[in-house]
């Protein structure tokens, strides 16, 4: 635990007195900033660049270099924030009466847990995170704290993600088996797409990988930030014959839609933690479900709340009920933090 909890009892104000839910999102009062606000605000600290956390139009934005770069790619330099300030992992910064540090969350490139220290207590808003290794971003860092705010996207014990390496193995086995067909993998443009590419490269796949046009810009940004992705080509301009036996990455909305008709007898694949529920994969018309997620699975969530050692957790979007139940059994105080609007992009 961070500052011993008896000091919290004596004189330290409980984080619930200074971290407040507002219609715009979570507000840190003594620091004068919002965390991942849903509406344009004066001062925002952004955990990562997914659209449900990073919204356009804030006057001042504080985030990691990776997050700011991706925000600029996705929404344009101006909309990414009036004043953009980079804070590196582990650097300390004073905002108002609060000291803030950012720590890797392992979710996507640039993703950060936001740690806030105020009058002897430390609260961490972890944003979205995962505990599986990911070649495209820094691994989650365990930071002890008094209150840990956690997501619960996969907050049910049925969600146990297999190793990404094994799922990539299944994809490559299918590509070998159906050599005349195109494997089109539905995945989100930020994070999942680049991770899939990097995992394919790690597994020794060195052919060009084809992309839906929507996936290219963020890949370029990743490359500019030093992530090697190998040869990438646009599927839209490729000859149909070139796509035989190829792997194409596209947004989930495109894989079973008219866009996919340009592909050669496609095998529809989808990379998502939800693919663990077979009937859900089936209902989505997916032929090869790949359980690859950028969110912690059930065991990852439990391991994390144990490791950070916080006596209290606040649970945001997803399976709050189950995680609160499990935390309570571990003698950890737990409550739901009702924030609306998160969890709409990328699972």
């Amino acid at each position, binding site marked *: 635990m961070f500052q011993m909890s008896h000091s919290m009892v004596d004189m330290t104000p409980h984080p619930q007195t200074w971290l407040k839910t507002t219609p715009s999102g979570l507000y840190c009062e003594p620091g004068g900033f919002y965390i991942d606000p849903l509406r344009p605000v004066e001062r925002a600290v952004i955990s990562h660049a997914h659209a449900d956390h990073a919204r356009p139009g804030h006057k001042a934005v504080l985030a990691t270099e990776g997050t700011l770069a991706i925000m600029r790619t996705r929404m344009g330099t101006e909309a990414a924030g009036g004043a953009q300030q980079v804070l590196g992992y582990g650097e300390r910064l004073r905002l108002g009466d609060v000291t803030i540090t950012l720590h890797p969350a392992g979710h996507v490139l640039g993703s950060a847990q936001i740690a806030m220290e105020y009058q002897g207590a430390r609260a961490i808003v972890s944003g979205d995170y995962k505990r599986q290794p990911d070649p495209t971003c820094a691994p989650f860092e365990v930071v002890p704290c008094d209150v840990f705010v956690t997501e619960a996207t996969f907050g*049910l*014990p*049925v*969600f*146990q993600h*297999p*190793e990404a390496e094994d799922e990539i193995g299944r994809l490559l086995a299918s590509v070998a088996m159906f050599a005349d067909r195109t494997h089109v993998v539905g995945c989100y443009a930020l994070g999942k797409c680049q991770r899939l590419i990097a995992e394919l490269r790690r597994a020794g796949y060195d052919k060009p990988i084809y992309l839906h046009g929507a996936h290219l810009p963020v890949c370029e940004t990743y490359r500019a930030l030093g992530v090697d992705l190998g040869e990438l080509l646009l599927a839209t301009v490729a000859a149909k014959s070139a796509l035989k036996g190829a792997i194409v990455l596209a947004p989930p909305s495109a894989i079973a839609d008219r866009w996919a008709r340009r592909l050669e007898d496609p095998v529809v694949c989808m990379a998502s933690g939800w693919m*663990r*529920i*077979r*009937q*859900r*994969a*089936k*209902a989505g*018309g*997916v*032929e*090869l*479900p790949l359980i690859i997620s950028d969110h912690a699975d059930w*065991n990852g969530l439990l391991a994390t709340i144990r490791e950070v050692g916080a006596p209290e957790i606040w649970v945001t979007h997803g*399976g709050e*009920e*189950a995680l609160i*139940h*499990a935390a309570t*059994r571990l003698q950890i105080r737990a409550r739901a933090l009702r924030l609306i609007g998160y969890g709409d992009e990328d699972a």
Partner: protein
Amino acid sequence: MKAFAELLERLLFSPGRNTKIALLRAYFATRPDPERGYALAAIAGDLDFPGAKPATLRAMAEARTDPELFNLSYDFVGDLAETIPLIWPPAAPPRAVHDASPELPEIITALRTAKRDAIPDLVAGWLDASQTSTRIALIKLITGGGGLRVGASLRLAKLALAELGGVDVDEIEEVWHSLEPPYLDLFDWLEKRAPRPSPQDKPVFRPVMLAHPIETKDISDLDWSAHRAEWKWDGIRVQLVATPHGKRIYSRTADDISGSFPEILDAMTFHAVLDGELLVIRDNVVAPFSDLQQRLGRKTVSAAMLTAFPAGIRLYDILFEGEHDLRGLTFDERRQRLEAFCAREHPARMELSPLIKFEVHHELAALREGAREAAIEGLMIKRGDSPYLSGRPKGLWWKWKREPLSVDAVLMYAQRGHGKRSSYYSDYTFGVWNEVGELVPIGKAYSGYTDTELLYLDKWIRNHTTARFGPVREVEKELVFEVGFDAAQKSARHKSGVALRFPRILRIRTDKPAAEADQLESVKALIV
């Protein structure tokens, strides 16, 4: 077990019927006896393990995890047979390098011979030794008494077997009910090591002839003088099979339902195969379908049930008379044989379904619309020269259903579906306004909407939930459905006093305020 698990997984995710048949065929062609026979039995729903009931497995999984977490997970997944394998904690060390589950025949033997109280430990041991797909196959196998729900019907399996053996699928259908798992004689025949197993005089099921819905264009195009008309009764279609070696009542889908209707079985004192409609009939008046429902799916029938809901048959057709196969004759010829048969045998509890005389089809159209009698669904139109063929041949038989009635009702509760729709809110309870301005439920619908509408409804329900009761959500009383149904019937079970037959969603009326939905009084006025 791994090969069987792999088959089930690939069947589930392969979209095309032909792909599924190819997968099944490859499996049957490459796996040894008796494994493939047991796999076939599992798909057929012919395996039953009385000692391993869903409740037992659920208790076993709850003991390994936590009852509360299990409940929440089951509510989310929507399928018990999937929840158990998914929630099963990873074996230590967490990453199972290989699948150490036993083979299918070994599992079946063990389940059949184990003492009831030893089964949870047995199954738990297998789950620990397996990877996820094998776990799912295992639980499906054990709980899937009525079929596996893996996206492959027994019919597809039979088509695959027909391909494997180079025989017509109807040849398999005709002997199917004389066979038993693991079907060694079937595979011997298909692989040319033995002659076709003979049904001899066993009371086997014969493939049923089905009708196409009639379209407006057909109505004007048909040569009506060549067609016969009869009522389409609202019961269940059955095949009565009586041979010197046994008697059976089969449903249209070849399920043996003899046990539920002992009085019909007793009345089958002849040797013939008849096609007819099973109904509840009192004093020669056919009761609504809801009465027949009381009799369906029962293993034993009490004397009180027999008196309160007496079953009878309206006969449509005759397939065999003694050992003579009449299926090659025309409908008109078979009809004559059927009439003569009835005049001679006078079978108890059965009578001919009358032919309806007509000169021009406009008369029929009027009859059909007028026929709001609860037990009539519409008309059947059959070509006089049609042989009795299996399946749904084109251009011979037509069904001409009544137009549905409809009511505007308000969505009240929603429940997650099962199978393909698990994790989507797809079952809707709807209600209408009573005289004191309260909504009262009048029915539940599971169909009629498109996939896009399902997504819309699922999202709407999640965003408008006011209360949760286990898997059921109560929603804000705002969304109006136009609900279609075939008939309104009096009901003692529903608080509203009315039950709808075949309710389905015709349209989502986002344009209509809930206050303008229908009144209970007007629904009751439709009761026949």
